[in-house]
């Protein structure tokens, strides 16, 4: 099992699931942001694993991983800015208190 593509995929899947769980479970906007980063990294792991085990994908994988990292960074930037903005308004980072609009 170890050293196979499948084991990496399982690992990355677990990582993605953990990220998802974190996103669902955490109330703090920053933590949720971090969970998303975790999910993106899980994707990166998948990509790299594919690249490592499937020769035809080797070159692609690196490029994709790089792009994903870049996108993640951009996302984090925008996200942090938004968290800052709402923190100014609401004085709390806890998203379950952002419920002025519902139903």
């Amino acid at each position, binding site marked *: 099992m170890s050293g196979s593509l499948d084991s990496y995929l399982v690992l990355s899947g677990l990582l993605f699931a953990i990220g998802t769980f974190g996103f669902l*479970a955490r109330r703090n906007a920053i933590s949720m942001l971090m969970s998303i980063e975790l999910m993106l990294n899980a994707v990166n792991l998948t990509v790299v694993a594919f690249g490592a085990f499937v020769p035809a994908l080797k070159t692609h994988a690196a490029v994709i991983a790089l792009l994903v990292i870049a996108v993640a960074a951009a996302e984090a930037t925008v996200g942090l800015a938004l968290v800052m903005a709402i923190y100014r308004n609401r004085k709390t980072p806890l*998203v*379950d208190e*952002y*419920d002025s609009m519902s*139903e």
Partner: protein
Amino acid sequence: MTYLIPLIPLLPLAGFVVTGLLGRQMGRESHQIAVWAVAASWAVAMVVAFAALAHGFGIGDGAGITLWNWIPALGFKAEMGFYVDALTGCLLIVVTTIGMLVHIYSIGYMAHDPGKWRFFAYLNLFMFSMLLLVLADNFLLVFAGWELVGLCSYLLIGFWYPRRSAAVAAKKAFLVNRIGDMGFALAIMAIWTQLGTLNMQAVFKLVEGGGLSSTWIAVVALLLFCGAVGKSAQFPLHVWLPDAMEGPTPVSALIHAATMVNAGVYLVARCNPIFGAAPGVMVVVAAIGIFTAVLAASIAFTQTDIKRVLAYSTISQLGYMFAALGVGAWTAAIFHLMSHGFFKGLLFLGSGSVIHAVGDEQDMRKMGGLARKIPITYVTMLIGSVAIAGVPPLAGFFSKDEILGGAFKSGFLWVWAIGFVVAGMTAFYMFRLMGMTFWGPSHVDPEVEQHIHESPTTMTRPLILLAIPAAALGLLIGFPPESGLLHQWLAPVFEATIAAGGRTEAAYSFFGIDGGLAIVTTGLVAIAIIAAWRLFGVDMPAIGLHAEPRPDQVREVSARRGLDFLYRGSAAKWWFDDLNNLLFVVWGGRLAGAVWWFDRVVIDGTVNGVGTVTTQAGLRLRRVQTGHVQNYALGIAIGLIAMALGYFLIAVR
């Protein structure tokens, strides 16, 4: 000659239009055009009737004229056309003559009514409608006239509309008539779908030629009879006619005694080829007729409203006519129709004169002793009463005698037996009426008493003019019995049917069965009249008759065991009105209310329910949107899982 025919109905129609549009402006003279229109119509009608009865002058045994193709639909045709034969001629005489006299009478009767112009307009419309009915050459046009006379009846009964009872009576008349009309309408449909024509002469030819199965003949005859029952106020649709007395008295005379109510008789007589081919239906006709005759006569016994007595009398006499039709005595029926038209018209107009005299009082208990104060009215009404009672040699005697004789000789002994009794009853209640009104002590309100006066000449002259035929018509056209003028006139109309019936009647034998029956009947009538005199009084000094009324004895007789029930039943009109009220007003109203409830709650409730369910679903579903990001994310995660499951399901398929 046939070109004259359309003029007969069109003249009154023109009168109606002009009076209806301009009558209000014409003020006191608003009757002029209407009366002259009818007079002109009468004149034309007399010419046409003469030609028809003479079986010549371009009419022969019947001739028609078609004006235009009224309803030229695909698969249906009805023309605007008229047809005149001897039967029509007879009715033309009755309708136009009495109509004209009633018009003249109304000049005086309605002189002070602010709605006089309206009255005359309606009367003219009625004349048009009735003449249309009589002259129409096809069933649909008859039906049109049929409905239109019903409308006029409605308008005229409700003439004094501010009075609620008048409005209600008008509506009742129209609705009850409509019940019968449904049958008529269905009959027309059946005729068209079976025969493909509505022209009456064509239909009769086809029926005589065997173009219609016996079942359909029976169905059509029965349906036509439904219409006749409604229009001629036969049991069980007789209830409207007494209430119709809410209308002005000339209306009662013209429409509800002399003309419109005869339409049913006319229809059955006109359709004699159809009825003649349906012996079973003939029995029904005879049974309904004679039952109505006795039923109405029994009610007339106890009524106190002078017009209601006459109304029930009318119903009863119409019953006679139907009995005559039912037993196949066609000519006798028409004979009675004519004679009844004249003497009942006379009686109604006379009663109008009485009512006029005593200050619009109709209750006979508040009359009495009027004979000397309004002599012309008195004498003419006496003639009418004698005529209707069947005292020879007045008109009623001959016509009634022919009916009873016809029933007896054609084997309808039960019809004869009941009719015989009714003859006695008729004589009794008529002289009860005479006694309570003209003889005995006065019960008139003393204040009114001083003002009692004979009616103006416009009212008395028609009375006199009507009294003549009421007295002499029998001798004139009905003598010798069963071979008089009328029989000669009508022979072509009925001969085929009679021949087809296969029943050969013995010739009239004065010294045989016919004479015997006449004597027996006359005897009964005499007894009944004398009984009435003894109970309700009489005062005819000219022939030395005098008896004081004995109300105590009346009371005693009516309270006698066995008779008290009959008395109460008669006074309550055998509870027909109460039954109808319960059935149609109370239960019918409840039914309608229930249906409306169903409409609102069930049907509309379902419609609104769909809306409510939708809205409620929206309100529930919107709660999913909690405002919390975690919940949203959870929802997305669940959606993701569901989607993954879906794809896996698809993948393993």
